[in-house]
């Protein structure tokens, strides 16, 4: 068991989350389908958290609290997935390569169990104004 686990996060798409976002960016449905991180079973065990528990995802860009979800994919310890959303963008650097492509597909971050609630969209909006 570790209090912190280092992962590489790749942002991906999901049709259910996409549909929810088209209906409303401010709904609970969109938040529940966006504010999550999909982890390998072994990483959940290392963190001693269960599916649905809250995790703080943190790196040099920022931080966000999301729910843990167990991956149904083949084993991929150390590799996590988040859906493209304002939640995943809290930790995406806008330092770009020569082609001006941001780093959405290889985000280094640290995970730890969180006491706080899942980050609300209103909090993300407030952060943009500071």
């Amino acid at each position, binding site marked *: 068991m570790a209090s912190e686990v280092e992962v590489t996060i790749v942002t991906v798409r999901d049709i259910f989350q996409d549909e929810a976002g088209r209906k*409303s960016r401010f709904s609970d449905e969109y938040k529940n389908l966006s504010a999550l991180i999909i982890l390998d079973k072994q990483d959940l065990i290392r963190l001693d958290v269960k599916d649905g528990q809250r995790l703080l995802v943190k790196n040099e860009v920022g931080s966000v609290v999301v729910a843990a979800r167990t991956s149904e994919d083949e084993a991929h310890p150390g590799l996590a997935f988040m859906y493209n959303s304002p939640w995943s*963008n809290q930790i995406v650097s806008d330092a770009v390569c020569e082609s001006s492509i941001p780093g959405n597909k290889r985000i280094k971050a640290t995970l730890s169990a969180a006491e706080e609630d899942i980050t609300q969209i209103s909090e993300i909006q407030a952060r943009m104004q500071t």
Partner: protein
Amino acid sequence: MAICTGCSLLCEDIVAALKDGSFSHVKNLCRKGHGHFQAAFTERTVPMIDKEQVDQDRAIAKAAEILRNAKSPLLYGWSNSTLEAQAAGIKLAEKLGATIDDTSSFCQGILMERILSGKIPTCTLDDVRNFADISIFWGSDPSSSHPRHLSRFSYYPRGEKRQKSYEEERTCIVVDVRKSATARLCSNYYFRVAPGGDGEFMEAILAVLEGKIPKVGDKKKMIELSSVLKKTEWGVIFPGLGMIYSLQDKMELFERLLAKLNEITTFKVIPMVGHYNMRGFNELMREKTGFINRVSFKGGAPVHGPEYSVTATARTCDAALVIGSDPLSALPFGTARALARLPLIAIDPRRSLTTDAAKVVIPSALSGLEAGGTAARMDGVKIKFEPIIDTKLLSDEQIITRIMEAI
């Protein structure tokens, strides 16, 4: 029949019946399209200045005032607007001496530039339906991003030369960092790559095609892949952001792979463009300026470069007009925050993080549902559409034209 502008497939066979201000019956919409159509009735924007509701004329006048007074304005978005609105937007950029950019700047632009300049061979989706026996989804997951791609074009339909379709004549191959919904469908030919490992995987394919031992991947599977590729009669690769973001500045590897594949057989490429008219903007910009995106008209003549991308310009411009896009949701936090601090004009049919942060909000008609126009499908085929819902709202084109007149 209606056209769905929910993604760049621009499905033309949508049946939608309206009753009492909502859809009583729809046919042929995918889940994504259904969300897109339903969105016509929720969270619509109203004209606003500084969070106060105003009439449309005042909002347009204020937008014109902001842009007129700005020294370095940015005009951004465009991928969810018609070709007619995009053409008006390019004229507005010229008139203002502004920077203009679209979502391709951090999306498929790097590949689209090669497609439009003829460096990479391409075809239409109708060619895919009629002739393709191999479709490679590389870093793309149409089951999530373009849900009717497989059924209308690439896997299930019976085409001119593919009457036996997926049962006997079509094979899908998926290269991805995860076993996506599409990868689960074609699990016999799913190849997992590590994040950033797409270039190595391309080198491995090049090696096996030349009879060498690949450095990455399961050797037996790679040899099987090589055999499938060599037997292909008419292949097509559909690159998604997974591949583009992984290769970054190494696109010449992809060009090498295509050259090799085309020595053996026929292989084309269609980028898996997300927004319904991103390609249209790129084609129009190329035609009018010689560049597909990231253009500044500050000195009069169009100048192109990474310094004119939205990610760079968000920090250097002094006002921004965002149309049909929600960069505050979609872009990295630093860029989103830089945009949120600007005098921001948002033209959008629906509430978003961008409209919430905007100084001026101008509501617009939803393209395809409330406003007609023309768009370029992901393969470049032009699709014309008529509105199916009556509205008094102005189209994007009308709004841009009125702003230009007011300036």
